[in-house]
């Protein structure tokens, strides 16, 4: 039952879209900030740039082997979904609470 509950939470659209949203924001900001220095690295150190370009492969492979590794070590699905949900909470909760507090401050400002 707990596993089903965790799975339903994990598969919730809002969580996945929220993660994607946060990642998209951070990525765009990082991209914009790093464009000048990245351009310089590519211009003067093309080999380093090529080396850096291969780093995503590490994460691609990690993603491929991660689920199998968890399976090999017999990690119960409950723990896997629990970890994801925990870090989902870590990402979501501060922003949600911050938003609530902001709303309250707005309300007080309008009222006052």
């Amino acid at each position: 039952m707990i596993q089903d509950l965790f799975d339903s939470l994990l598969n919730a659209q809002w969580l996945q879209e929220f993660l994607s949203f946060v990642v998209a924001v951070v990525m765009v900001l990082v991209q914009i900030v790093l464009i000048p220095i990245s351009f310089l690295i590519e211009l003067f150190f093309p080999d380093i740039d090529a080396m850096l370009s291969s780093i995503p492969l590490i994460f691609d492979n990690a993603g491929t082997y991660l689920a199998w590794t968890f399976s090999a070590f017999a990690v119960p699905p409950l723990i896997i979904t629990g970890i994801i949900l925990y870090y989902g909470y870590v990402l979501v909760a501060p922003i949600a609470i911050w938003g609530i507090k902001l709303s309250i401050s707005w309300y007080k400002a309008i009222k006052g």
Partner: protein
Amino acid sequence: MKRFLVLSLGLLSFILLGVFFTDSSVKAWGNTESPTICELDTQIRLNIQTNLSQWIRDEGYTEGKISIFQQYNSNPDYIGFVFTSINGSMTHVNTGSSRGVQYTGTTGDLSIYGYSSNNGETWSVIEKTSSTRTVIPQGCVYYETNVPRGYAWFPLGVPEFDFNYEVEVNYDDIVHIEEAPFVIKQNGNSSSPTHTFDSSFHIGSFIAEYDINDSSGQCSVNTVNFNDFKTYLLDDNPYISTLVTTGTTTSSKIIHISVLKHDDESNIHSVWSTTGGNRTFHIQNATTEPVILRYSIQVIGGQPRICGGEYANTTGTLASSASNPYYEIIETTFNVTYPDGYQGDLIPASLENLKPEFSYTVDKTGKLSWQYMGNIKPFLTGVFFTNIDSLNSNWTLDNTIQQVSSNPAGWLDESWTLPEAGYYQLLISHSQQLDNPPWTNQNFFIQPIVMQFYWDGSTAIRGDNTQCSATETCNPLLINDPSKMGLFPNLNLPTYGLIEAIKSPLLFLSTLPAKMASNACVPLSLPLPYMDENLVLPCMRPIYEEHFSGIYNLWSTLLVSMFSYHMAISLFARIKSDVSPKDDTIQVAQL
């Protein structure tokens, strides 16, 4: 003025947020068209469901074979098949009351034979359909010819059941004891008592058992199946059934019929979860009539057997105690059997609404894979058959571009790649050994699963059929490229190595839920040096569960305990920190 400005700013922010999220949510789901699925498919399925009573099912399904049986009927009618990737040849089967065609899934073109008979005994091939079949859109092949009435369906993932599990039931477990809806008392020598069902009698399905108990108290249970769990609804009333007893009844014997209802789930768990040695079943019953102990155990599905010696200590003379209510303690032992894999669980009344669940992913290079999510117990084994079809822009079949048989079941090799952007369809069917399914004569067949999706040639997607019926398509979720998910979908910034390196953990994070899902494991395929083969490492957890269940359970319990303790501690501290009024910062750094 200040209030007005704040109010206006807040209102404007609200509107902008609404526009943004509306826009992003639409784009995040990609194509929002609702593709149509084969209408004929539905028509055939309806025909099957409305003609179940005409089925004769053979017990001998074997792995790799699909048997299609039809009941003899002198009226020529049609036979329909849903096209799957299963290929092979048909053979004639004439076993007992089962006659029809048997389809062996191997390789080759789909061949369907029709058999006709004038008297139900002599069958002959009248036509082979491979040359005359008509391919219609949406991946269906429909064939119509003059064969005896019958409807065919390819079973997909019919579980294998084992009816040898024993469980004991005691009185406390059976919370609900009620008088059976009908009781037949047979005090004479007649062996054919008849009972007419009342119009208010409404049960889902039932099995009737009658005990012929002798003075030694030996359990002697005979079972009468009313057309093997056929569902009798109010519309069927009045239904008249004749029980033909096989035992010899005398004046001292009472035929006892108990009805096992299938529409009450309240007591199932306690019944199923009761294990161990024999239990004592106590009943106190006061009556001025000959004692007929009546009880029913509500079960869902399955084919429970209850063996009871209710009259172990009686000889049917309790009628003499009319003025002195007689209390009798009865001891008996019940053996309830149920399908393997359902210990402590509910058994669905039928598989009518149970469908195997699959998920699929297409990565950004077009590599396609799917997984069986293991929602039907016991796990499906054997071979899955997969069609990968390309569709045209209105979601109708364009071409079958790949047919795959996957063994072991549940995993499609990722080596196949979608050739280009476009509309695609996965059609997955499965062959499974069928051994005494509890849903005799019910719609236990599971439909082939169809999943359709659009791939844009560059974005990874995933989807499943968990939220959709077999004839409905869920739009896939986009994964792997959050920049295309609504925020700045048309913003194309230059990419450099440094940016790729910094973006990669974030991309990894965004796809982590999909990759870490409890059923996301796929077998690893590693190329072997100097050999033209790959080393395939299967997912280990199901193997542990099957072969080392004790150690696995111990290990799982230990891990879950440690994890729960750690999570409880850290979550408590985090919540305490989050709600602290002294700290309003957002700790983005934790990303």
